[in-house]
């Protein structure tokens, strides 16, 4: 018996390009690659949950068919970071011949923006040397984090956030299949909290359905209340109020209890800065502070020290906002 897939994000992940919702233009271009049986190096950029990894998988299924296994390798740069992996695993895969009629393999490198500049340089050389036998699909949130020479060697695909209709359609489809009663206000609530992120929408739906037969606004907000810790916002507010020591305590909780990486924290802080109640001009100044620390974190040795510095800067900003 084939074991049933338990996570709905996987169970309902599209298997063919044409099943991918919304990203019509992207899908058209990718389908033409399949028709021509050729592919340039690609850079898939876009926010989480917009179908980047799925598109790479579907593309490979359709190009390779039964030879998918040996010809497609998915690596995650945030797990396999560093120059060593590029030098060995990637190279070993890239330089050997493909099976079947397609003369190249595909290597999808997820979260490629986690690679250091040195590793990207090594990657660039590998991409160049083995173009004949291997095409790369680099998957990132921000294309700007990829070095210029790699960007110029790739066809860029920008994945926009998914529309409300597309997510709603998927939610209804899954609920039907799973026998979940999904109320209209439940859909609204999921759409609101998922911000165009399909993965978050589906996970929210699945978790909310665990509370009972029907998914409504209450069960959805119960899920998001638990799943999205308020700690980031609280930390931000504490530091702006000048309570550095308590803010730092919250920081430690986020890094340790929630297992967030320093980059995750900065990303979430950045997202929050535009939601908090401060003068508009200060929102940009705060973003500037966040950006500087984000940069220093990529150069520095200790994320915790850099993030503490971020909170100290916020304390000062908070004081100055108070004076205005």
């Amino acid at each position, binding site marked *: 018996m084939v*074991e*049933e*897939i*338990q*996570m709905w994000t*996987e169970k309902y992940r599209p298997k063919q390009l044409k099943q991918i919702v919304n990203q019509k233009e992207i899908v058209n271009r990718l389908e033409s690659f399949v028709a021509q049986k050729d592919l340039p190096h690609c850079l898939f950029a876009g926010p*989480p*949950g917009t179908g980047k*990894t799925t598109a790479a*998988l579907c593309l490979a299924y359709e190009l390779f068919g039964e030879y998918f296994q040996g010809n497609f390798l*998915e690596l*995650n*740069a*945030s*797990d396999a970071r560093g120059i*060593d992996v590029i030098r060995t695993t990637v190279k070993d895969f890239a330089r050997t011949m493909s099976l079947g009629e397609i003369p190249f393999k595909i290597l999808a490198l*997820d*979260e490629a923006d986690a690679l250091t500049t*040195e590793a990207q340089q090594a990657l660039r050389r590998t991409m160049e040397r083995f173009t004949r036998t291997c095409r790369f699909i680099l998957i990132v949130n921000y294309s700007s984090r990829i070095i210029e020479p790699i960007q110029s060697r790739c066809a860029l695909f920008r994945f926009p956030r998914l529309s409300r209709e597309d997510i709603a359609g998927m939610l209804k489809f899954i609920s039907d299949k799973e026998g979940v009663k999904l109320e209209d206000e439940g859909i609204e609530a999921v759409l609101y909290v998922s911000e165009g992120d399909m*993965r*978050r929408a589906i*996970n*929210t739906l*699945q*978790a909310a359905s*665990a*509370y009972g037969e029907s998914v409504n606004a209450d069960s959805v907000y119960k*899920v998001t209340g*638990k*799943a*999205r810790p308020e700690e980031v916002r609280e930390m931000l507010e504490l530091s702006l109020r*000048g309570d*550095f*020591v308590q803010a*730092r*305590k919250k920081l*430690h909780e986020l890094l*340790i*209890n929630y*297992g967030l*990486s320093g980059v*995750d924290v900065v990303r979430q802080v950045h997202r929050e800065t535009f939601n908090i109640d401060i003068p508009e001009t200060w929102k940009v100044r705060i973003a500037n502070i966040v950006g500087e*620390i984000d940069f*220093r974190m990529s*150069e*520095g*040795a*200790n994320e*915790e*020290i*850099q993030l*503490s*510095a971020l*909170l*100290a*800067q916020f*304390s*000062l900003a*908070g*004081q100055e906002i108070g004076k205005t």
Partner: protein
Amino acid sequence: MSLPWTEKYKPLGISEVVGNEKALSELVGFLRSWRRDASKKALLLYGSPGNGKTVSVYAAARDLGFEIVEVNASDKRNLEMIQRTIGSAATMSSLFPVKGKVLLIDEVDGLSGTEDRGGVGAIISVIKSSEHPIVLTANNPWDPKFSSLRQYCEMVSFDKIRAPTVRKVLRRICDREGIRVDDSVLEALATNAEGDLRAAINDLQALSQNKTELTMEDVVLYSRDKIRSIFEVLGKMFGGSEARLIVDDVSSTDVDYELMIHWINENIPQHMSDAKELSDAYDMISRADVFLGRIKNRQHWGLLSYVFELMSAGVSLSRTVTKPHFVKYQFPSWIRNLSKTRVTRSKLSSIGTKIGNKCHTSSSGGVEHYLPYLEIIFQADPKRAAKISKFFELEDELIEKIAGDKKTHNKITKELKKE
């Protein structure tokens, strides 16, 4: 110095090992009833350092008349090495089936980095082909890189040794060595060791060199020595007014600078309460850390002096408003939290890796995008939780972590048994 007391007073048989009765009987049972076709051919003993894992294996082997073939973390542990030492010992039994053997792979968490590439795989293949029981020890088996290894092992947890038990062992040693000592002194040593019997015995030996009597004063001085030097440096640093002197003070200690930067980070807010001071001081320590990163990433050791200058004088001279005052320095909470939560963090990352394997994401992606929802499902729907646990191939300890509490965990375990 004569023989280390940890060697001299090593238990010779299982009956002399203290603590962990249940784990010990599992160990002996495993060795006694081991068969080539057993479903789990290896035993993984895990727990914090100094609670008797390795010693127990030796004691049990002695009781049963087994010979031990050992590899430990100090050996270079790549594929070749493991197969050469243990692999041959594992399969050569048929030639001389005189005496039973146990293969001991000590401190598997010593496996790391490129040097040990393939090490885990090598151990697994040795386990599969072994003609002898294999016992592994580890401090923290929840690291994702061991997830495949765990499937081949029966897991046995060793707990910390309770302070009264440690005290009894110390007392026995003192009696044999002819050292006069009060119970309260041994109590202090035992508490200090936090469940690490080996550390307690080592402390006792270090303290009682050339002595026939041990007092509370000896113990207090011993444990405070190291901490005190950090306090002194911090006091001079935050109180100083001359950049050169401050830098000299901080760089002349034997405290490691990577630790020092955390001590400074922890204690800045105690010396500076003004937001401008705080922000300036943190800008300096943040710059120091950037230089530290450049040193680490690019081996530019010449940059080290900037690290010292920025983190010491740079931080200290940012204080312009707050008056100098006495501060009771705190141990870096970040480091304390890190070491307290090491096991939790590896469990999280193990869970993340298992999710990532099935859901096309990284280990941290698994933790960020899936784990919060799994926690909700585990709480609300044990039946589904059981199915999900099976789907991700989660081990019991990982299920317990996601479940969050005992009651939920029990419910899920019950559902799993029904499956």
